[in-house]
């Protein structure tokens, strides 16, 4: 039990780096089943819905104007986003609440004690992979729906606007997962986080439109396009505002949720 003469010193080897932290979060995301399931469900349901919509479509005998044809194809390709947004919201919450639930968060924050870089890395990885999955699902849905609708004489004019709308739909899915990540970070529990995220994405627009419908309250009608998922569908379908304005609204929601999550993550004991 004698004390050693030499004091061990840490070798001057690689330390924390942004690339390393992102790589770590990527390994984490790909190595749990919930991610694989969520992404598979997003793609499969989107394609399934596109298939269902295009095979059951009936437009009568009259000729359909070209821009309406394009919008029918776009709708069949992106309708799956309504379902996909719910799965992305759940996944976004689980990415962090799963760590709180299992205690993994303590390992994560021990490796990245400044904390915020770990959350940002999660956001980057989640955004990139959700965007890719969104693109795959929207593109696959288009490839399934277009030939079937084509047989019915409905073809899209595939121009910059059309492609832009498919991209914006994918972007909305990616922003939804990051928005939910912020919610999950603030609430730290899977049940609470999923309830809150789905409440905002799914329930809030319904409640607000019910209030507007029943009471005729103008304020309810006024805030409606600013709600997360209303602005989200506005991103790729248009509406009261320009599409880029809708995109800004969704980005603002996402940034607010991420900042709230970051502030609480930094401040609280883990």
């Amino acid at each position, binding site marked *: 039990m004698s004390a050693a003469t030499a004091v061990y010193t840490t070798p001057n080897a690689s330390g924390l780096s942004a690339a390393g932290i992102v790589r*770590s979060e990527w390994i984490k995301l790909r190595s749990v089943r919930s991610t694989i399931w969520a992404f598979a469900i997003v793609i499969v349901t989107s394609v399934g819905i596109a298939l269902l919509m295009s095979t059951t479509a009936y437009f009568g005998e009259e000729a359909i104007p070209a821009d309406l044809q394009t919008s029918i194809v776009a709708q069949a390709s992106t309708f799956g986003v309504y379902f996909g947004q719910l799965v992305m919201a759940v996944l976004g919450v689980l990415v962090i609440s799963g760590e709180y639930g299992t205690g993994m968060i303590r390992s994560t924050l021990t490796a990245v004690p400044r904390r915020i870089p770990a959350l940002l890395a999660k956001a980057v990885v989640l955004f990139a992979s959700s965007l890719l999955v969104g693109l795959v699902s929207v593109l696959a849905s288009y490839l399934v729906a277009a030939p079937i609708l084509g047989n019915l004489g409905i073809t899209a004019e595939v121009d910059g606007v059309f492609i832009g709308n498919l991209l914006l739909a994918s972007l909305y899915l990616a922003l939804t997962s990051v928005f939910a990540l912020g919610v999950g970070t603030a609430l730290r529990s899977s049940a609470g986080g999923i309830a809150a995220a789905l409440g905002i994405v799914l329930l809030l627009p319904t409640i607000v439109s019910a209030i507007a419908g029943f009471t005729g309250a103008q304020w309810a009608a006024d805030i409606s396009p600013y709600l997360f998922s209303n602005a989200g569908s506005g991103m790729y379908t248009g509406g009261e505002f320009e599409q880029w304005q809708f995109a800004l609204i969704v980005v603002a929601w996402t940034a607010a949720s991420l900042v709230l999550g970051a502030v609480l993550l930094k401040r609280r004991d883990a």
Partner: protein
Amino acid sequence: MIHAQALTKRYGAKTAVDDIDFTVKPGQVTGFLGPNGAGKSTTMRMIVGLDRPTHGGVTVNGKNYAEHRAPLREVGALLDAKAIHTGRSAYNHLLAMGATHGIGKARVNEVIGLTGLESVAGKRVGGFSLGMGQRLGIAAALLGDPATLILDEPVNGLDPEGVMWVRRLARQLAGEGRTVFLSSHLMSEMALTADHLIVLGRGRVIADAPVADILSGSTRTAVRLRSPRAEQLAQLLQGPQVSITTTEQDLLTITGLSAETIGDAAAGAGIPLHELTPVGASLEEAYMDLTQDDVEYHAGTTTTEGALR
């Protein structure tokens, strides 16, 4: 080297760690002892920045943990064997932890080998026993080959072979000049593993000394005797400095008198003795001496005088 200064943590009105100062030196194994709720885990969590001190602070190798360029290479910590996502394999857990610091597959496989996890590395952690979870936690702590190791109850849940392994590992790491700080509720374990002890009670340091000093400082040198006329002998031996306790009918435990005095007294009174054994203070008893007033949660009715010894 871990250095705590005026370290304090309060949760609302409750003070978990109360203005403590201590230094954990390299090249030796420092044990961290204290009853449940004494503040050991809170202190360890503050060292790696998981909990924020209310007052004071603690540094590792001269800096706050979070200020190091490569925290995992400075400190390896096992704070909670269950701080692992249950849905991920052990290998991927270590790979993800290491990736933050640019530590790659080669080192991950090395620590898997070092902790004997080869056969289960590909399995999901959710199915791990407590012992395997501990080994994985130790593997994660060793990833960065750190100069300081903080292990909270590392032998918890390990089989005897695992306990021996942790003991050897701790001694080996300290022998290489590293700082090894480990907590355990097993005093006997500390006697075998630690060189130095920091004893915590109700958030305060009640002892900070080499193990040998704490042992010799104990007042509990007792004599155990067995006699068919124990009751009569007990009356004979009573005195102001003498404490006698009975746990069985024929059995007395006496402190304050030497075995010689007791034997002579028994012989003088013609009382037969069936056993007369001086009992040296164990670390456990020394520890109980130190913490007796500081146990936060007394174990209700089952804690009799006899059981406390």
